[in-house]
Structure formats: structure tokens, C-alpha cells
């Protein structure tokens, strides 16, 4: 019933006006290529082993400031699931020794990183009003993406497993109806 209501609401809304990120599915086996980095995205994935590293590839035409946030469903079995992320690329700040040690892969030469280890306590909670779901969130962080290529790496430092979402950007790009292709990933 709830799915039908959400579907009806989505179909009734003009897509360009709907307040929603462009959804996408993250796979550890394949980097996610962002087509339009000026738009906002909500990318969802699942840690099956806890050892995965998810990679998102972007390329901005100019330096570009936008919020980035990682979140997990607000369910009891994911209480200790705190995936981390790092925006990595040329021109980003040099990470601290602790951040460097936490990264899931060596930084390419000349690259820096903005690292979010998702350790805010008590854990902030996000209510997402389109899907009407609660999430535990890292809290958004404004990151200045460099001009040219950059990447976002997502990993689970404590090797915990479970679903997660990665959100970035503000401007609405549309395409939210793609969420219906993989409904169970977005709606826990």
C-alpha cells in the first residue's frame, strides 16, 4: 500500500520539481561513473563481507563545493554499521596520519583526501521525507571537489556489513523514477 502511494505521488509530481536526489546502485565490483556531477545523487549499496571498497568517479569542470553524507537504515541490527568515505583527488588536503592509515587503498601520487570516518557520537539521525525513512547519518559535510577527476571511496573500517547510502550535491537532476527499478535497495 505504501509503495503504491509513493508511486502515485511520484507519478503525479512533475519530475523537474520533485525534491529528490538522482538514485543509483553502487557495486563493489564496478566504479560508479557520475554523468552530471552538478546534480545531486543518492547512491545505495550493500556491504556483504565488510571488506569491499565502493568507488564513485566524478569530473567537475571547476572547483565545486557540495555537501556529502553517508547514511544507513535506522534499524537495530545496523546500530554499529558506520561506513566511512573519502573524497580523493588532486588538490584536496593532505590527510592526517590517522586518516591516511584508515584509507582502504593507497592514495595516488599527488592526490589528497577529505576523509569522513563517520564517528560522530551520539549518532545523528536523518529523516528523509521523500521515502519517509529514518537513517543514521554521518551528517553532511561541505567538500570542495577539485576541477577535473576525483573519486569518492566508501568502505567499512570495522568490517561491518549491511546497507548504506551515499548522498552528495543539492541541485535536483531528476531521474528518481529509476528507484522503482530496484525498490528493495532503497526502501528497507
Amino acid at each position, binding site marked *: 500500500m505504501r509503495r503504491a502511494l509513493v508511486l502515485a505521488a511520484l507519478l503525479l509530481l512533475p519530475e523537474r520539481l520533485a525534491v529528490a536526489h538522482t538514485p543509483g546502485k553502487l557495486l563493489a565490483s564496478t566504479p560508479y561513473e557520475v554523468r552530471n556531477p552538478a546534480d545531486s545523487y543518492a547512491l545505495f549499496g550493500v556491504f556483504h563481507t565488510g571488506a569491499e571498497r565502493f568507488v564513485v568517479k566524478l569530473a567537475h569542470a571547476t572547483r565545486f*563545493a557540495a555537501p*556529502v553524507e553517508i547514511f544507513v537504515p535506522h534499524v537495530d541490527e545496523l546500530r554499529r554499521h558506520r561506513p566511512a568515505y573519502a573524497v580523493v583527488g588532486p588538490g584536496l588536503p593532505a590527510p592526517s596520519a590517522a586518516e591516511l592509515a584508515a584509507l582502504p587503498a593507497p592514495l595516488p601520487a599527488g592526490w589528497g583526501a577529505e576523509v569522513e570516518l563517520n564517528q560522530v557520537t551520539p549518532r545523528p539521525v536523518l529523516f528523509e521525507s521523500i521515502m519517509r525513512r529514518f537513517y543514521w547519518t554521518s551528517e*553532511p559535510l*561541505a567538500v*570542495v571537489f577539485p576541477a577535473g577527476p576525483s573519486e569518492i571511496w566508501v568502505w567499512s573500517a570495522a568490517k561491518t556489513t549491511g546497507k548504506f547510502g551515499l548522498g552528495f*550535491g543539492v541541485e535536483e537532476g531528476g531521474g528518481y523514477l529509476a528507484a522503482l527499478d530496484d525498490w528493495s535497495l532503497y526502501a528497507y
Partner: protein
Amino acid sequence: MRLPTFVGGITAAFAAACWGFPVDQSTECAAYVRCIEAIDRAASAASGTPQVTDLDRYQDGGACWGNPELGKGCTTSCRRALDRLRAREPALPVECAP
């Protein structure tokens, strides 16, 4: 209640529920914009090459301020970014001071 008034009210309530009302730029994001613009000016002067950061969404009237939910998230992101910058960078422009 007359029918047009009722329908108008329902429509307005539906629109507000879906999209919310625009909000003002937060002081946190105004400070963040000033700081990044100052960093860009300093970097441009030091290198001789213009450095400009696209801050449109955080600017007054930007996409961050389209509704309260977006505004709250953007404001948090600005506050956290400024906290990080101040903790990490020893020589920020004066525009970045608390």
C-alpha cells in the same frame, strides 16, 4: 468554506508538503561562502592563476534554500566544513575566523 478557497488551500498544503517553502541563507553558510571566496582570492594572488570555486548552491538564493530540509542539511555541512578548516589550516584568511 467556498469550494475555490478549499481547493486552493488543499493545493497549497500539498505543494508545501511536497516541496516546502524557501528559507533564508543561514549564517553558517554565509560564513562558509565568505571563507572559501577568501581562500580562492589568496590562492589566485599567490599563484597568479585565477582560482574560483562554484559555491552557487550555498549562496543566498541558491538551491540549498529551496526548502527547510535542504537548508538544514546545507547549514550542517557548512558548520562542519568550517570547523574542519579552522582545525586543520593554521593560516586561514581573516574572513574564515569564527
